[in-house]
């Protein structure tokens, strides 16, 4: 019986010792000062969507990802309070200045700020219209349905044939 116990114990210890976590993950850190009230509304890196708003000074949930080198795309909502229950009235499309790299097993911290991202008109670093169109029409098309985003002014205006109260109305409203 002692032998049996020894064997079972060895199996359990062996299993515990063989823990082999090498999954890659990523997290968004909102590095904007609280006073700016710039919320990271959404972000996308490589294969990972950060869907929940991240308030200044906070971090998102850690999401499972893959080893990759890629640009981060994000939408910012200056002055919006996620707890208000109302949708944001203004979205600003931004992208990281550099590709961010995560190796196997890393947890990539995506630090969002004017120093690391380009596109904020408040920081006087607007995107090219081509970059902005890529973000608004491919990465986050649902947030810019029936609307046109102007990279130079960081504003969104409804397309002429869009219904006033259509989906994405808040996003499509005047900036």
């Amino acid at each position, binding site marked *: 019986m002692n032998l049996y116990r020894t064997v079972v114990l060895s199996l359990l210890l062996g299993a515990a010792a063989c823990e082999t976590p090498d999954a890659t993950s990523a997290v968004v850190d909102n590095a904007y000062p609280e006073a700016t009230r710039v919320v990271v509304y959404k972000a996308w890196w490589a*294969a990972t969507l950060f869907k929940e708003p991240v308030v200044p000074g906070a971090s998102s949930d850690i999401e499972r990802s893959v080893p990759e080198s890629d640009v981060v795309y994000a939408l910012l909502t200056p002055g919006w309070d996620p707890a208000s229950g109302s949708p944001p009235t203004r979205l600003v499309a931004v992208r990281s200045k550099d590709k961010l790299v995560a190796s196997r097993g890393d947890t990539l911290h995506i630090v969002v700020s004017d120093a690391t991202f380009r596109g904020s008109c408040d920081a006087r670093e607007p995107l090219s219209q081509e970059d902005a169109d890529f973000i608004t029409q491919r990465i986050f098309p649902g947030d810019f349905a029936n609307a046109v985003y102007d990279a130079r002014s960081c504003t969104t205006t409804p397309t002429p044939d869009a219904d006033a109260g259509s989906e994405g109305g808040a996003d499509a409203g005047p900036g």
Partner: protein
Amino acid sequence: MPSARNISVSRWNGQYFLRGFDVDHGTDLALSIDGIPVNMVGHAHGQGYADTNFIIPEVVERVEIAKGPYFAYQGDFATAGAVNMVSRDDFEHSSLGLGVSGSPGHGAAGFRALLIASPKFESGLKATFAVEAGRQNGPFDNPEAWDKYKLFNKLTYPISATSSITLGEMSYGGAWHGSGQLPARAVEQGGVSRFGSIDPDEGGYTSRHQIFVQYKVRPSDTSELKALAYLGSYRFNLFSNFSLFIRDPDSGDEIEQRDRRTFYGGRVSYRIVHELEKVRFDTTMGGDVRQDDIHEELWNTVHRRELSQVRSNNVYETMIGAWANEEITPVRWLRLDVGGRADSLSFAVDNKLTPAGDTNAPSSGVDSASQLSPKTSMVVSPLQSDPAQVDLYVNYGHGFHSNDVRGAFSKPSVNPLTRAIGEEVGARGRFFDRWDLAVAFWQLDLASETVWVGDEGTTEVGGSTRRQGIELETRYELTRWLSADADVTFTKSEFKANAGNGNGLALAPKQTYSGGLSARHALGPGIVRGGLRFYGITDRPANDEGDIIAKGFTLFDVHAGYRLRRFDVAFDVENLFNQDSRAAQFDTTGRLRTEPALGAPVPLGFNCGSGGKLATGGEPRHLPGLRGRALHPAIPAHAPRHGDRLPALARRPR
């Protein structure tokens, strides 16, 4: 090994290639262990879903393979064939095994531990208690982290010299991450590696627990009665993303399929052999019943979190079958089999959810269906001498697979039972007591390819089909310690009605092959063994139109082992020559997040990648999504994945 007697198994998602079928999840291959069905009727992921991962391969004593619908004792899903695994009653001694596996340069190693206890009793009681635990990561950028445990417990008690009773239990629990399907264009254009992932949240968790009791008695020297009853519970959560970002360009198209069920049933058979005027009659008759009480759901999810519910159904299915077979041997060189079975399926669907505007949701209802399946065969043995034994045979039989009964209450509706009609002529022989040779010409007609698509909760219409093929098998003992074998199949599969596409039938294998060398020889105080195996499949159409090709592959594996009285060490290398291959390929419409959204203009010079095309065809103006190959790679080179050995039919949920 992933191939046996012309049944090939895709390594990573468990697709079975058999007789013109790419048996995606087991719909046309009846799998069972000790007579307990593995296939799940009305499964949330696919009809007949057959996950054999709950089986500890070492406890399998033998595998019984029956090809075609010719066997009266085989019912649901036994159209292309049936595989029954028979577990061992006991082992010579108890043992402990440890193994490591991995793909060098591709992430962390996996491990496996197996304890088998087989105590001996003077009463004649045979006992086996086995437990397996392990983790497997595979070669993927998104490690599988497939954690699993399995239990196998079996007691066989001899009630008398002619009867025994067996109690058994099997359990399995597993959780894993999947890498999903990758669009071929994304890999070719460098957007993702061959072992990458586009939705790393794919994967899931599952469990299966079952108990059974089996009674065997021989009332006389010429008769035998067998009875089996089983009860099981099953849970399954699978997260998948096939189209990536078409339906929901923002959150993605990730879905979750949930299946909760209790299944129970039994089977009984009675066999009696007697002679009348020197004519031998071997009579077998029996019946089987199976009940599944199922709750299944389909959700839209992101990061494995619920977004919206698409389907919620309670399904109750009862399948009852009765069968009989008379084997008549009037002379030594002739054997006739005449038999058949009658099956009745009763079912009820309780639809709990119909999303607004969804016209595809099944309605609630109660219905039934039945089928008679005659079967017959004749075997002529013109040569029965020592140097040459030859059998010639002819088979004819009807069989069926059941469909997901939710499809019976959907539009268009699915016939609950799909009839299959098989015909076959062949020969098999053994020569000089060292050379086995078999050849078969077969044909299988399936009344319909219409199926319920669990990934969408809708019906996919397909017409009747015909598959025809030739199978060759040979084994040759080169020496007493070295043998060689080779199997090859040629198959033609097509829809009977030409829909303007040349009768093409997506993913039907055209040619498969396997073979190798096996050696076993005494060396020092122990026995050394080894093997070099190959298996493969040629190019085949990925869609009914045949304009997208699923690439074939040939893979080589090697095995070496040495056994002493108390120790056994083994080493396996899979994909010895580092062949690039795609273990699974599908013609799927999908959209990467960085590609133009639904209805957006297609940029000039947009590259669909090889094998891809625009869904609308013609001049690309707007992009409703790209069609093309999605692929799932096989493991990389020189990857000693298994200190443990794969079960003959190992698979995991896709």
